[in-house]
């Protein structure tokens, strides 16, 4: 019964939405009163929509419609209202076309302007911050883009800090974001295809790519998948990501998400496709490969020797962050002969007083660590440090002193935790955090054998993944030898030649 009610409600909602859009697909009429009535019906109870009627010489009636707070009132006042009200319409212009021409040539000469006759288009534009001007006796509306509203300033992206490199990040405003991209890649080959997604929100989505470099199969796949999206609302780019990703059942992210225009630009140049969504500072870049998630933007800005060193450390520690607790369990409880004798005796002596099995201990600590980490993100800045104090003191000190948790386990879990912090893109660390738990269970029940099975399972999964047709482990499997230069080491780029042949002597 309840189900029925729900589906009924849903149907009703859908028909409502569809009805309003069905009506809106019709064209406006020449009768301004009719148009006004229609639009007022549509914007019923929308207190932020302003209808402004203007009479010129008591003859021609104009109607100005806009969203309050979304347009630049100065421009409207000085460029629209003043000339119309005080200057008035020149005498002798009888025809409808001429009025439209007058608007374009004289009144709105500085503004981008559109002539539209479809209700739906007009409403769309009004809601995006255009001012609509309808004239009596005309079946065309003029839409002037005079949008102006408060947006967040361009700031440094908090989640993707760099030591070296540009500090600006995307904002919620799509136009600003595309501008940032265009400023970096100043070529007509940078294409920004615009789409509208979401039945209700009609969100602007831009597919960015560089013509001639982009892989056409990926581009077509992106276009196809975005066009197939049937969803009412797009609030954030995550909605798009979830709608077009290859599989939801993988712990690994299949799209690169970044707030940094420099990253997007660098990936576009490499032939990838970016999806920018209005209202979200996070751009999606496809296709993503596994190793890209472990690379920081600084890797390409800093000198290559240091970068190569850091990369090796990073890969090693990322591996440790997943398997270190599991290795500890497997070695101490299944294969004590593999631990050096002195170390094993020390571990045994430290474990002597603790009542719980090693697996349970590690599990508890990992569990608490994940809890602490999650708590730390959401807490206000003032009480954030409290979490670490409680975590370090209560769990680190008291639990060990009380003999509930053995000291090596605190060390092991902390090491694994620190290792997981080294992943430069927060998001790429999520799968490792998740996967360490099944590995714990496997190694706690079957020792190194279980751990090996778990790692093989993960590898099989990684090899199977191929988001947008690109294998996830790309430079490694399938092996692309020349791209290995950007794996453990970042091969230095060729030196640019700064001087012409005349100044050859100046070259070092």
């Amino acid at each position, binding site marked *: 019964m309840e189900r029925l009610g729900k589906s009924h409600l849903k149907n009703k909602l859908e028909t409502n939405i569809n009805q309003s859009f069905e009506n809106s697909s019709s064209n406006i009429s020449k009768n301004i009163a009719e148009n006004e009535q229609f639009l007022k019906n549509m914007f019923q109870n929308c207190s932020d929509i302003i209808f402004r009627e203007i009479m010129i010489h008591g003859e021609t009636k104009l109607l100005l419609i806009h969203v309050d707070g979304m347009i630049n009132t100065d421009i409207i006042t000085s460029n629209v209202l003043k000339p119309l009200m005080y200057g008035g319409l020149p005498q002798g212009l009888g025809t409808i076309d001429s009025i439209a021409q007058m608007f374009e040539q004289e009144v709105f000469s500085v503004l981008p302007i559109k002539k539209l006759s479809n209700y739906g288009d007009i409403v769309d534009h009004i809601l995006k911050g255009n001012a609509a001007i309808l004239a009596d006796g005309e079946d065309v509306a003029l839409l002037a883009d005079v949008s102006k509203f408060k947006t967040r300033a361009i700031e440094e992206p908090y989640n993707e800090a760099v030591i070296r490199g540009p500090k600006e990040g995307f904002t919620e405003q799509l136009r600003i974001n595309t501008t940032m991209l265009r400023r970096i890649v100043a070529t007509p080959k940078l294409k920004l295809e615009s789409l509208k997604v979401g039945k209700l929100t009609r969100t602007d989505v831009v597919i960015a790519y560089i013509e001639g470099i982009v892989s056409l199969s990926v581009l077509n796949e992106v276009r196809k998948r975005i066009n197939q999206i049937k969803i009412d609302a797009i609030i954030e780019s995550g909605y798009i990501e979830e709608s077009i990703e290859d*599989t939801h*059942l993988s712990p690994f992210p299949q799209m690169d998400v970044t707030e940094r225009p420099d990253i997007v630009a660098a990936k576009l140049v490499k032939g990838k496709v970016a999806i920018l969504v209005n209202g979200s500072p996070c751009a999606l870049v496809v296709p993503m490969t596994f190793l890209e998630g472990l690379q920081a933007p600084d890797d390409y800005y800093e000198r290559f020797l240091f970068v190569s060193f850091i990369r090796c450390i990073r890969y090693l520690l990322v591996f440790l962050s997943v398997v270190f607790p599991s290795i500890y369990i497997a070695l*101490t*409880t*299944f294969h*004590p*002969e593999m631990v050096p*004798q*002195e170390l*094993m*005796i*020390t*571990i*045994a*002596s*430290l*474990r*002597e*007083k603790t009542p719980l*099995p*090693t697996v349970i201990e590690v599990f508890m600590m990992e569990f608490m660590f994940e809890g602490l980490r999650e708590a730390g993100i959401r807490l206000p800045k003032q009480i954030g440090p409290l979490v670490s104090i409680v975590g370090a003191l209560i769990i680190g000190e008291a639990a060990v002193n009380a003999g509930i948790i053995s*000291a090596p386990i605190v060390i092991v879990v902390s090491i694994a935790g620190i290792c997981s912090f080294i992943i430069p893109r927060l998001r790429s660390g999520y799968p490792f955090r998740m996967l360490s738990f099944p590995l714990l269970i496997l190694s*706690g*029940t*079957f*020792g190194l*054998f*279980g751990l090996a*099975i778990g790692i093989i*399972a993960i590898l*099989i*999964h990684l090899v*199977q993944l191929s988001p947008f047709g690109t294998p996830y482990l790309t430079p490694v499997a399938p092996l692309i030898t020349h791209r290995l230069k950007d794996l453990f080491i970042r091969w230095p780029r060729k030196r640019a030649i700064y001087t012409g042949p005349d100044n050859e002597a100046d070259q070092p």
Partner: protein
Amino acid sequence: MKRAGKLCFVWLLMILSTTGCWNLREPDQLAYVLGTGLDLTKDGQLQISIQIVIPSGVDGGQESGGGTKEKSFRVISATGKNVYDTVPSFQAQLSRSLFLGHRRIILIGQRLAEHGIGNLLDEFIRNPQSELRSRIYVVKNGQAKDILSAEPIFEPFTPTELVRQQATLGLKRYYFRDFLSDALSQGLQPMVPTVRLTDSKQFVYSGTAVFNKDEGLKLVGFLNSKESNYAYWITNRQTTFTITSIVKQGNGNVSLKLRSLDRRIRVKMIDKQIQIDVHLTGEGTILENNTNLDPTKRKDLNIIQEELSQTTQKSIQKMIKKVQEQYKTDIFGFGESVHRKYPYQWKTLKQDWNDTFPELDISVKVELQSKDPGETTSSIKSIP
């Protein structure tokens, strides 16, 4: 996704079918055996002693301090028909199961060694738990049990101390598995380091035990620590040792610490008579000079090197004579050298190599070099 499900199923099956790997043992369920001692009791029974760790007695780096400190190990013994026969008796005394994976040392009492250990080795190879990287020692004039019970000086356990001492003495690693391979190879007799207990219950390294594997791996005699240095030099088991000798021309003695030891064994066969040339070289540093010679001068240095080489050569010749005549076992592996050089003749030679060895014509040449005269020139004594 269906494929992944199927794969999961396969893994599950694999895991279920291989539950033989199920051997979860928490660290506090194990009795770590650090050392095993084999003895022959007076009534002719095999007695095995093990040293086990008591983890709560090991200082884990925190607290403790005051109060009576628990002992970090305990030695328990049991007798049995063979080596593994003692395990149930051990287990009857312990609440934790024996763990041999960290055994550092195997000690053999002198009485048992003289009786022969050839028929006791099987368990050490066959038992999958057995650690073959244990070091092996023969206990001179005593029982293995007493060494295990001795109080160590630095380490919490005697076996670790004995193992570390080997490195300090400049001995190369000689594991139980090396002993086994020596005992099973041709043309080479095993020799095993020896330890003895002093009256003050301290263990002391005291040379080498010589075995004869052809008679059930019986102990045939000992070499003192100086002699064993030479023997190890010839068999390439020594990395460094010190020679102290009188230099007559300088009217005093000199100590030379040798670091890079090398050996070369040449085999010649002249009219079925085997002749073996042992060429030993060593480089080192003069650490003490009580002569009136100045080692920074080429002429004086030559005198020192010459005299040291000569006396060492004589000692080595004496040692080889002793082994040839007294023990009659080829601990130097000359048989192997012959085997390598004359593989066809070896086939007939190997049958009575033990009889041939004492008759061998062995010449020794020692060349010692001092690369570094030390921090000073001539001895303080000789400066007027």
